[in-house]
């Protein structure tokens, strides 16, 4: 009789426990977090990307340096003849040099834009791979949210994570594994 009562209590306890677990799983918000910039920096493809960006930057700097030298030469030439030319000619020359300087500044801006565009073209596909891997890991681990740890300007979004939470929900390593970075 006593054994039966214990068995009944045990049975109800297990049922209650399972119910509680089911409810908890349904309502539990599982949040993970990831540092995509650290993954990106460690991707083997990044070495080639950096090299290509460096080459691109060097080429643009060379082009700009040529334009600047040309401008400096023309300024020096103007300074040499400024004392012997008419006021009208001076005005024209100064306007022409002003325009040249403006062109130079514009060329610098365009070069910066081109560099940013080139970076997007080269890094974009890697970021897409990281995004897909984050999604895959999140699904495997049943996460409702995956937060970014840091903004692109270096501000931290997650200031602190407890050791336990970090061990369970920092998915940075898992995403790297998903990307095959440790193979």
């Amino acid at each position, binding site marked *: 009789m006593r054994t039966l009562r214990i068995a009944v209590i045990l049975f109800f306890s297990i049922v209650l*426990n399972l119910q509680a677990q089911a409810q908890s799983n349904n309502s539990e918000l599982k949040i993970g977090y990831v540092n995509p910039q650290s993954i990106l920096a460690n991707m083997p493809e990044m070495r080639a990307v950096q090299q290509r960006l460096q080459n691109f930057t060097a080429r643009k700097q060379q082009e700009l340096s040529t334009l600047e030298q040309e401008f400096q030469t023309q300024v020096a030439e103007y300074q040499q003849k400024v*004392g012997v030319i008419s006021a009208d000619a001076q005005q024209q020359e100064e306007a022409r040099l002003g325009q040249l300087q403006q062109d130079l500044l514009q060329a610098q801006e365009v070069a910066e834009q081109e560099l940013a565009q080139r970076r997007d073209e080269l890094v974009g596909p890697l970021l897409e791979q990281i995004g897909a891997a984050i999604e895959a890991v999140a699904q495997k681990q049943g996460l409702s949210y995956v937060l970014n740890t840091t903004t692109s300007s270096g501000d931290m979004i997650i*200031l602190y994570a407890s050791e336990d939470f970090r061990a369970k929900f920092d998915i940075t390593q898992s995403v790297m594994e998903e990307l095959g970075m440790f193979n």
Partner: protein
Amino acid sequence: MKQHFILPALLWIFLFTVETQAQVKIGYMNPSVVLSQLDEVAFVDQQIEQLVQERDTELMSKANQLQQDFVAYEEARSMLNEEARIIREEDLLARDQQLQEERENYLNEITQKRAQLLQPIIEKMDQVMAEVAQEKGLDLILNEATSYGDAIVFFSAEELNITQEVLSRMITSGNDSEN
């Protein structure tokens, strides 16, 4: 008699299971607010301001000298031969270039110096933040806003904001170390 032990044990197992599956507890804070109100940070800023003034004076004096030399060259140019002109112009250009480089280095130096002076304060703040998180059983602490002022957390319960708690502990520990 046995039952008296079994029932509480089962209840305990049940409660423990529910407890371990409790939701993640998230707090937030604003480190910029904490730093902006600490005397140690004000002292760092004073040191930086002093360094800025010193470097500004130094650079200003070099820039003035260069400007004077440039005017002197302009005045003397018509009396100089081609070779002398080239030498003077190259010298002026090189000095101008050097001044620009010094200006850039100076900005980097200021940024690095500030970061270096703030580092121990930030480390202390991280330590205090971890203590508060552990005491309050927080799993995560989010930054309330970026350094550009963009909100990360738009709304949350005020009791989850640990900014003031971290600030007051930082002030207390600062006072303790002074005494």
